[in-house]
């Protein structure tokens, strides 16, 4: 089963290595992982898509929560979140295939962002199934190379993953305070 998990992490030394190291150590199979700074530069938001059973998903969430730099973890409801992925794909073109490529791009609301005598670079945005469908069409036409960002996702409506706050270290009350 496919799950999308949103994670807030502190922007600190080695945080990405900690998160990715966890996948290796616990044997999780990750489909994609995206990371970028949030509105607050102290934090980044990671989106993980995972293919695995309930056990793998639960363990991944609980193990993530144990990492000190991980501040929030939330499993996003598939039906109740917006998912997007961006792909750049470079396609060989000939006078015979050019029209088909451009027509397909238009239908998929893809943008042609680079054009040379024998290659086109197309930018497509959408949920992963749209990207897959577009690739299916392009594959027989001759893909030279492609690059995908992996999924980013937000919950629909007012729902949100609460932004963490920087907290001060709490100090034990000194004994002389009691007197």
């Amino acid at each position, binding site marked *: 089963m496919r799950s999308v998990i949103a994670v807030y992490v502190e922007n600190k*030394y*080695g945080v990405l*290595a*900690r998160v990715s*190291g966890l996948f290796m*150590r616990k044997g999780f199979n990750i489909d994609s992982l995206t990371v970028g700074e949030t509105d607050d530069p102290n934090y980044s938001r990671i989106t993980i898509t995972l293919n695995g059973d309930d*056990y793998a998903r*639960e*363990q991944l969430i*609980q*193990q993530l*929560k*144990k*990492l*000190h*730099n991980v501040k929030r973890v939330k499993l996003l409801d598939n039906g109740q979140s917006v998912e997007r992925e961006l792909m750049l794909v470079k396609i060989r073109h000939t006078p015979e295939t050019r029209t088909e490529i451009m027509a397909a791009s238009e239908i998929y609301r893809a943008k042609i962002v680079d054009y040379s005598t024998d290659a086109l670079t197309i930018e497509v945005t959408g949920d992963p199934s749209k990207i897959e469908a577009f690739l299916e069409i392009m594959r027989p036409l001759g893909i030279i190379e492609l690059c995908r960002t992996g999924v980013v996702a937000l919950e629909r409506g007012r729902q949100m993953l609460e932004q963490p706050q920087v907290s001060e*270290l*709490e*100090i*034990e*009350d*000194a004994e*002389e*305070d009691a007197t």
Partner: protein
Amino acid sequence: MKAQQPIQKNGSEILIETLIEQGVTDIFGYPGGQVLHIYDALYQAEGRIRHILTAHEQGAAHAADGYARATGKVGVVIATSGPGATNLVTGIATAMLDSIPMVAITGNVATSLVGRDSFQEVNITGITMPITKHNYFVTDVRDLADCIREAFQIAKSGRPGPVLIDIPKDVQQALCLFTPKGVVKRLGERIAPGSDIERAAELLRNAKRPYLYIGGGAVSAGITDDIIQMAETIDAYIGCTLMGLSAFPHSYDRFLGMQGMHGKYAASRAYREADVILAVGVRFSDRAVGEPGQNPHTASVIHLDTDISEINKNLTADVGLVGNIESSFSRILAKCEPQCHPTWQKKILSFRKQGRAIMEQQEQLAGDTLTPKKLFDIINAEKDDDTMIVTDVGQHQMWTAQYIKLERPRRLATSGGLGTMGYGMGAAIGAYIACGSKPVLITGDGSFGMNLNELATAVTYHIPMVIVLMNNGVLGLVRQMQTLFYEHRYACTELQRRTDFVKLAEAFGARAGRADTVEAFQALFREAMASDMPFLIDTQIDPNALVLPMLPPGGSMDHLITTIG
């Protein structure tokens, strides 16, 4: 608290001041090029903090671990960059697997030299990421004090564990303003919801064959009295993991001992036959309950742990209570009613009889020779409740688990999860520094050979430890597997060494003697217990002696091996 004025200090001074501020009185370590500055600050702080110099960084890490196990305080170890840091790795992993609070401090090359394969440079934060709760690479001296405070907080909060702080040399030298603070608070733990507490209590109220399965989490939580009260109230019996052995007094008559691969027969059987299992601070490790899938059981399981990821990790619990163990346990206890299960009592009695028969059969076969059991009878008779028992890893460790009588919490240090041979020498030194209780190290010739250099440390610091060297010339626990499962093909487990351990100990400046009979061992052990210097007793045991009963690896609890060949 009156506001403290900031003072200008360098990184090394800030480190030492923060350690003192966090209540550290003793640290273990070994100097080197990239911690020269820190050692200079230590030199100047003499009298306020004590440094124990070991023979090897691994010994220092195990000492910090033993220190923490004996007291529950955070153990602190310090090492230089490169090989100094990598020598800590086994000690840190040992602490991680057994959830022992530790702060490890390493020096590193200056930030300008990092990543250039400089002399004695190693990325120790990368290396230790999977074996620490958290680690820090401090690049700015202004972050240093709070990093150290946070490290202590993480090490001792929730499920304890090791934290490493790597400090480059230039950060050790850099100046900044330092404001002293107090000891950091533990992070708050979850409190299990009342509905789950009620579900757990209901299961226990309806139990006919209740069993308490106690682990290291119960030692950390310090709930000895509550466990006993629970057993009394609901007429339950108690078994434990290796880590849970020191959670309560062994003289208590409902205590069945350690369960599992080399556990007590009665405990393993009670675990199998129970209808409700109250599991406290355990992780259902394959060594304690058999491999997952091989041992499906019909009992309802109530699992208490402070670490949410342990619930349903190795075994699906009927009720999982995440959060502070002390709070969950006492709240369940308050909802339990007095019960009596005569059929269960009879069953337990018969398990105990069978267990005793297995043991007596082995003893009879051995005749008058000095068997492990006879050694432990003497040790139990001569030690007092405060004696710190430390082990290495192997047959001697399992025999300790089976035969030793512990009466007080935190009087056992043994490497459970990682199974680190060579753990004991360092741990015994650390435990003595921590609590001043006389350590008795039970070891084997294999394990002792790994870190015997720490005898030098024990002599230097006048550690009055007794080393009971169960010498059989073989790597017994592995050889036992070869006996049982590899048709006696003893690949590399017969040592054929000619080490004279008595001369060796004496060469280090320790006292030593050899005992091959029950009487000689008793006399020597008494002498050793009275000695104020380290005292090694080399005692020959039969290389063919097996740890029994034994659960075959991957096998089921229903197939315990209870007799020899």
